[in-house]
């Protein structure tokens, strides 16, 4: 493999990786604050992609501008699901019970969303062609929409990072992520923060979906692979650590493209898991102790 091809793969990997990091940031926020693994996260992404697609096809709104519509819409959807599903579940008390039952509840939501999309929008592959003309740099070519996706995802992650590190509510979110009870003793309203963070998480998933729809085909089942990648990125990057998420996303994206080039496209989904398993193996034996703290 020559140098130019290698560089091309790395650049494509970085674009994908930025997207993974954006999706993972939402997952990491909700899992960190509520300790509830939202396995329907990919489905919110799918809904976001469809919102963008229909706005683009029916109203001619550009995908970037449609983020302005998709983001608040997904935020509201997240709040609604929080009120309908998570609040009644948390009434039970015992946290390990909530963790288990929420897994089932979210699996139910996953099935409902996926099949509702299948019934109402059919399983057709949908594509948005927007800004696909390539521009060439010194050693590689890249289409403009990929640059736009990379730019937006990196910008959003840095904005989130700023929010979590520098503002009071951001610090409260990080405190709750580290120790919920201690945070509540410091008069942080953990329930309200959970509410907002869940909305924020689905909102980020929706934005990720709108961006993913610019690069990939849009189908009702597009969400689940993104959930898995986001999960891997979340573990490697560390809970509530947005910059860690970004670096882990880049790492995963680049390794995925280079790995798929060598062992074949069919193994692409397996590559993520090889990376995850290898990482956990290293961390659990303390070779990467300083990263292990976040696990």
């Amino acid at each position, binding site marked *: 493999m020559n140098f130019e091809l290698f560089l091309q793969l790395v650049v494509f990997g970085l674009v994908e990786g930025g997207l993974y990091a954006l999706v993972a940031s939402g997952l990491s926020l909700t899992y960190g604050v509520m300790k509830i*693994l939202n396995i329907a996260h990919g489905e919110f992404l799918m809904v976001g992609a469809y919102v963008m697609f229909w706005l683009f096809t029916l109203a001619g709104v550009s995908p970037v501008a449609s983020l302005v519509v998709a983001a608040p819409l997904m935020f509201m959807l997240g709040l609604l699901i929080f009120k309908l599903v998570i609040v009644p579940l948390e009434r039970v008390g015992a946290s390990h019970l909530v963790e288990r*039952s929420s897994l089932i509840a979210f699996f*139910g939501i996953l099935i409902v969303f996926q*099949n509702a999309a299948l019934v109402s929008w059919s399983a057709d592959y949908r594509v948005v062609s927007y800004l696909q003309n390539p521009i060439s740099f010194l050693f590689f070519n890249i289409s403009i929409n990929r640059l736009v996706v990379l730019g937006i995802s990196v910008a959003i992650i840095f904005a989130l990072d700023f929010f979590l590190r520098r503002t009071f509510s951001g610090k409260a979110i990080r405190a709750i992520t580290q120790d919920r009870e201690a945070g509540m003793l410091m008069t942080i309203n953990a329930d309200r923060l959970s509410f907002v963070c869940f909305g924020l998480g689905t909102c980020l998933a929706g934005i990720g979906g709108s961006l993913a729809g610019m690069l990939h085909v849009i189908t009702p089942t597009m969400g689940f692979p993104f959930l898995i990648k986001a999960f891997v990125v979340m*573990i490697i990057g560390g809970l509530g650590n947005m910059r860690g998420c970004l670096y882990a996303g880049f790492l995963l994206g680049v390794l995925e493209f280079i790995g798929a080039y060598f062992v074949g496209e069919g193994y692409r989904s397996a590559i993520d898991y*090889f990376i995850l398993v290898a990482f956990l193996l290293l961390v659990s*034996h303390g070779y990467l102790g300083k990263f292990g703290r976040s696990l």
Partner: protein
Amino acid sequence: MKRSRMWKPQYLALIILLLAVLAFLPSFFSAYIVSFLIITLMFIIMSCSWNIFCGFTGYISLGHGMFFGAGAYAFTLALVKGGLPYYYSIALAAIVAGILAFLIGLFLLTIRIRAAYFAMITLGFNEIFQAICANSAALGESTGFTIPPVPHLHVPYYILLGVAVVAVGGTYMLDRSHAGLALKAISQDEEVADTMGINVARLKIIFFVLSGILPGIVGGIMAWFWSYLDPYQGFNLVFSFQVVIIAILGGMGTVFGPVIASVFMTLLIEILSTNLPHFYNIIFGVLVTIVIIISPRGMNALIGKIFHR
């Protein structure tokens, strides 16, 4: 289900009667009913074996389908390529699934790992095996294998019935044994259990292997029953999830919960998918969510509440 209540003679008589009915059922009913019962038994065994490890220790494995798939592939390769008789093939399926569970247990359960991470990594193993089977020429790639059909529907039915009795009986015995108590202690606080002198890692691996062997057997028999096998049927992610849902719906760590929920779910899926083919998944999802919100401790607790009021 108090200790004294279960051993009353009328309960024993009821169980024997139920088994007798189940044993004679296939002689009187159509192939459709027998096939339905086979699917029900499959879910009962899968959810019970999931429950043996995951229900008692609280580690949720989202990839129990991998043992199913490993067993199915071992059975198919032995039967189709190796030409072994089916009983040896089934034994081989059990052995392969057991070895796989042992290796994964050595890898995952000897370290301290968060429940959610354990869940996602087991799911990942399922995906890795699916990718390997779909890309390897020796394992039939994505077209898979066709298998000679079962000689008679009764053969898989009686084998599955036997395995189901072993699974439910085994859970019942585990529930009141010392090991069952130790596993429940792990689910409540692993570090305390370790300090109390329970060999946590060994116990977890033993029961993980036990809970992997039964799906291996079921996988082999179901591949035979369907008479074909491909990676997406063998390592089916949705199937792995269904098993977990059934076990949690029934009640984790209870003996009869998974059985009740298996019957409920197979009936529900059968009725909805024949009557409302387009909307059945949506209704299914809504019902699952509602049941878990109403009764987070599972249907076992729900039924207990209704009958002991």
